[in-house]
C-alpha cells in the first residue's frame, strides 16, 4: 500500500470520526439517582470535617511545639517522604496493607519509646491520638451513610495522614530526648 492510500485512509478515518455524535441522550433519566445522592447536606459535612481538621491540626501542633521547646538541641526531622498507599474508600475498599504496616510499626516504636517521656507528655500525646481516632471514627460513620462523598474521603485520608505524622514526629522526638539523656 503506498503512502497516498495510507494518508487518504487516515484522513477519511479522522473525518468520519469527527462526524460521530458527541451528544447522546441516555436511555433513561439519570437525574433521580443524582438528586438522591446529592441530597446530603454538603455544607454541614464540610463544616464538620473542617472543624475536625482544625482540632487535629491545633492539637498535634501544640504537642510537637511544646516538646520541641523543651529540648534545646536541634531536632532531627524524620524523613518526610513516607510513602502512603493510595486509599480508596467505600464499602468494598480499605486502606492498603502498606499504610497499615507503617502505622503499626510507628505505633510499636512509639510505645517502646514512650517511657522516656514524662507522664504529662505521654498523656498529651495519647490525648491527641484519641482526638484523631475519634475524628476517624466520626468521618467513617458519615462515610457509611455517603460512601462516595469525595470530600469525606479526602478528610478521612487526611486524618490518617495526621495520625501517622504525629506518630512519626513524636517517635522521632522521644528518640532524640532519650539520646540526649544517655549522653
Amino acid at each position, binding site marked *: 500500500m503506498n503512502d497516498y*492510500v495510507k494518508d*487518504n*485512509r*487516515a484522513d*477519511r*478515518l*479522522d473525518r*468520519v*470520526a*469527527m*462526524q*460521530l*455524535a*458527541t*451528544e*447522546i*441522550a*441516555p*436511555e*433513561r433519566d*439519570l*437525574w433521580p*439517582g*443524582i*438528586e438522591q*445522592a*446529592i*441530597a446530603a*447536606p*454538603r*455544607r454541614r459535612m464540610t463544616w464538620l470535617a473542617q472543624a475536625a481538621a482544625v482540632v487535629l491540626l491545633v492539637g498535634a501542633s501544640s504537642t510537637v511545639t511544646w516538646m520541641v521547646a523543651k529540648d534545646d538541641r536541634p531536632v532531627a526531622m524524620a524523613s518526610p517522604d513516607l510513602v502512603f498507599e493510595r486509599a*480508596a474508600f467505600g464499602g*468494598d475498599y480499605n486502606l492498603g496493607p502498606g499504610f497499615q504496616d507503617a502505622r503499626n510499626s510507628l505505633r510499636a516504636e512509639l510505645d517502646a519509646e514512650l517511657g522516656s517521656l514524662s507522664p504529662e507528655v505521654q498523656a498529651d500525646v495519647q490525648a491527641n491520638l484519641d482526638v484523631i481516632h475519634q475524628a476517624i471514627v466520626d468521618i467513617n460513620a458519615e462515610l457509611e451513610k455517603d460512601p*462516595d*462523598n*469525595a*470530600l469525606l474521603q479526602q478528610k478521612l485520608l487526611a486524618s490518617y495522614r495526621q495520625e501517622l505524622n504525629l506518630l512519626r514526629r513524636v517517635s522521632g522526638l522521644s528518640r532524640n530526648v532519650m539520646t540526649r539523656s544517655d549522653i
Partner: protein
Amino acid sequence: MGALLTATGSDYSQMMVTADRYDIANEAAWIRRAQRADARAFEALYRLHVDRVYGLCLRMTGNVSEAEDCTQEAFIQAWNKLTKFRGDSAFSTWLHRIAVNAVLGMMRKSKREHDRIQVVADTQTVHLETGDSGEMRDLAAAIDRLPERARHVFVLHGVYGYSHDEAAGMLGIATGTSKAQMHRARKLLAQQLEEQGFER
C-alpha cells in the same frame, strides 16, 4: 435536547426553559446558584450537559450500564467539587475532566476491562444507540473494540476534538503517549475497517 425543566419553586419558574434558550449567561447564573447548594440550578446544568457527558462516557466505555454509572458519578462529583470551580476553563470542559476521571476510576476499580472487551467482542452485532449510521456505525463499533488506552485517546482527540495536550492531561499520560496511542488506534481501526470495505 428538548426536555422541559419541570421544577417548581418561587424563583425557579424563570428557569423553566427549553434547551434552545440555554446560553452562557444562563449557565453562569446556574453555576453560581448551584455553588450555593441550589439543587434545582444544578439540575438545569445537568439537563444542559448530560447528553454530552453521557456520550463521552458511552464512547469511552462502550457499555450502556457503565456509561450510566459514570455519568451519574461525574455529576455527583461535580456537585461535591462545584465550589472549587472558578471558571478558569469552560464548565463543559471541567465537567468532561470529571467524567473522564469517573470512567478511569471505574475501570481501575472494577478491573473488568479484559472481560468487558470480551463481552463487546462477543456481542458486537448489538449496536449501541448512539445515533450513528452507515460507515459511522462501523467506525463506532470498531472504536469499541480498541484496547482501552487507544480507545480513550481516540475518543477524546479524534471524536471530541481535544488537543493531545488536553487529552493527555485528562487521562494522566504524557502528550507523546497520547500521540502514540492515537497512531496505534488509527492503525488498528484501519485494519478492522479494511475488512469491511471502509476505504472503498
